[in-house]
């Protein structure tokens, strides 16, 4: 188990929680988790996965298979229909609002397109969680913000507004904001989408380096197979609301499982069909109905 860095927040609860985090053998654990946005259609059915402290885990699978929903379950924005979601040993589904917010203060999340606050500058975006969640003075906040921006290579862009940033820069600023409170767990929702190869490699390297520097754990929801195989420690493949395959990058590369092979090679036909299930094509054309 990795040694965690010291507490960053000043209140007693957070201080105590950090000891619990250090002591707990899993960062995230999902046991038989099922979830549906409406009862008639379940997005997840019996998902089991484990993220250990210090690990970077990738969740992969086709669009709409429930990967982002897993991040929402971990963040507590939705609660499982059945099963347990535990973050550092605490059951997220059973948390009240106060406990949920306490848990979230130890968690950083990078959204697909950064989700930067458009009315705040780069500096103020990174300072936002520090101003809102800590009682630190402006001088200390300034130093911390500059350190976080330096870590992502954008100290020189601190006075820019979000609309002046490229996609890759916005993602890096969001990453700096995500690590502002030195989180124990980072969640990444498709961090590589829409990036050029250089920005993509930069974000990938930063994810790995920052995870190791913070002694944190990370979960990455992504479609980018090649980048993921280079930076993550473990991969889960989700399909049909379940974990259909898992393993280390080495195991995944060597896997003969049809789903894994089709996914990492990007084959159009395979166990995941090209066509959405539908009625007979000829009779539908002839019927003239919509």
């Amino acid at each position, binding site marked *: 188990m990795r040694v965690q860095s010291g507490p960053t927040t000043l209140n007693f609860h957070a201080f105590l929680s950090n000891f619990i985090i250090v002591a707990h053998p899993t960062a995230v654990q999902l046991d038989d988790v099922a979830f549906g946005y409406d009862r008639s259609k379940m997005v997840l059915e019996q998902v089991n996965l484990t993220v250990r402290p210090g690990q970077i885990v990738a969740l992969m699978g086709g669009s709409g298979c429930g990967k982002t929903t897993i991040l929402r379950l971990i963040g507590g924005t939705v609660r499982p229909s059945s099963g347990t979601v535990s973050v550092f040993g605490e059951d997220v589904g059973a948390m009240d609002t106060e406990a949920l917010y306490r848990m*979230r*203060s130890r968690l950083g*999340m990078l*959204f*697909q*397109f950064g*989700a930067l606050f*458009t009315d705040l500058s780069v500096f103020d975006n990174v300072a936002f969680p520090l101003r809102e969640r800590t009682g630190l003075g402006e001088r200390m906040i300034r130093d911390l913000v500059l350190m976080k921006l330096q870590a992502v290579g954008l100290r020189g862009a601190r006075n820019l507004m979000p609309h002046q940033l490229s996609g890759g820069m916005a993602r890096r600023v969001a990453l700096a904001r995500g690590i502002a409170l030195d989180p124990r767990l980072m*969640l990444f929702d498709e961090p590589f989408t829409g990036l050029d190869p250089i920005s993509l490699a930069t974000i990938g390297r930063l994810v790995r380096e920052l995870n190791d520097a913070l002694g944190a754990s990370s979960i990455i929801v992504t479609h980018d197979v090649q980048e993921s195989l280079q930076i993550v420690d473990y991969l889960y493949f989700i399909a049909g609301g379940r974990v259909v395959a898992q393993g280390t990058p080495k195991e995944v590369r060597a896997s003969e499982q049809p789903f894994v092979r089709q996914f990492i090679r990007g084959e159009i036909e395979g166990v995941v069909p090209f066509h959405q299930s539908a009625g007979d094509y000829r009779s539908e054309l002839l019927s003239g109905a919509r």
Partner: protein
Amino acid sequence: MAERGNVPPAQAAGPVRARTERLGAWTLQKIERLGFAARFFLAILRFSGPSLRRFGLVMREIHFAGVLSLVIIGVSGLFVGMVLGLQGYETLVRYGSAEALGTLVALSLVRELGPVVAALLFASRAGSAITAEIGLMKATEQLAAMEMMAVEPLARVVAPRFWGGVISMPLLAAIFSSVGILGGYLIGVVTIGLDAGAYWSQMQAAVDFRDDVINGVIKSCVFGVAVTWIAVFEGYDAAPTAEGVSRATTRTVVTSALVILALDVLLTALMFRGT
């Protein structure tokens, strides 16, 4: 031909039943949304404490909703006052009471037009902007990001905007009425040539502070709460897409206008003393 087993039960029972079911579903949906809006209002009040303690956030919203609406409120107030001056003089001069123009302009503005027209303009200018801003924050996951940072969006985003609007509205209505009275003066005294002393003194004698001014302020406060509540709710409840935000913005303006006019009837009836 479709098999009987594939036909939905509502269609099988005929179009009247299908229509009735749709109407029922629509009504239930509207009632549910109204309930959600009421709970949302209570949640805003619950989170108002932290927002009002950080008054800088509210001040910023007063700037956006209030100060930036000053031009449209001022110009509209001036024109409405000028029109009242022209129309009022035209009518009063027939009865030989042209000196009462100041009274007519002031009472029309303070009791009725000031709060109502200012609220309609406020809904179009600031209400739509509040809805669009919150809706876009939702669509671009800014609200979700805030939640994940353990920062409550209702306290940080919604409540300051709500109070910014509620505080701005009566001030804007007061400015609208004041500029309107000045517009009436420009027409009645400066252009037509009525006596300035008569214009001001008749106004001073006829306008009652409690019955006219305070009632007007009460109206504008109620309109401020209604418009800002609608604006923040529509933004927060908007579908997180470009079309969803656009529809929400339109709904804010239309619903606000109808609610302002309905509330105006209700408040005027309650305040009407038959004197």
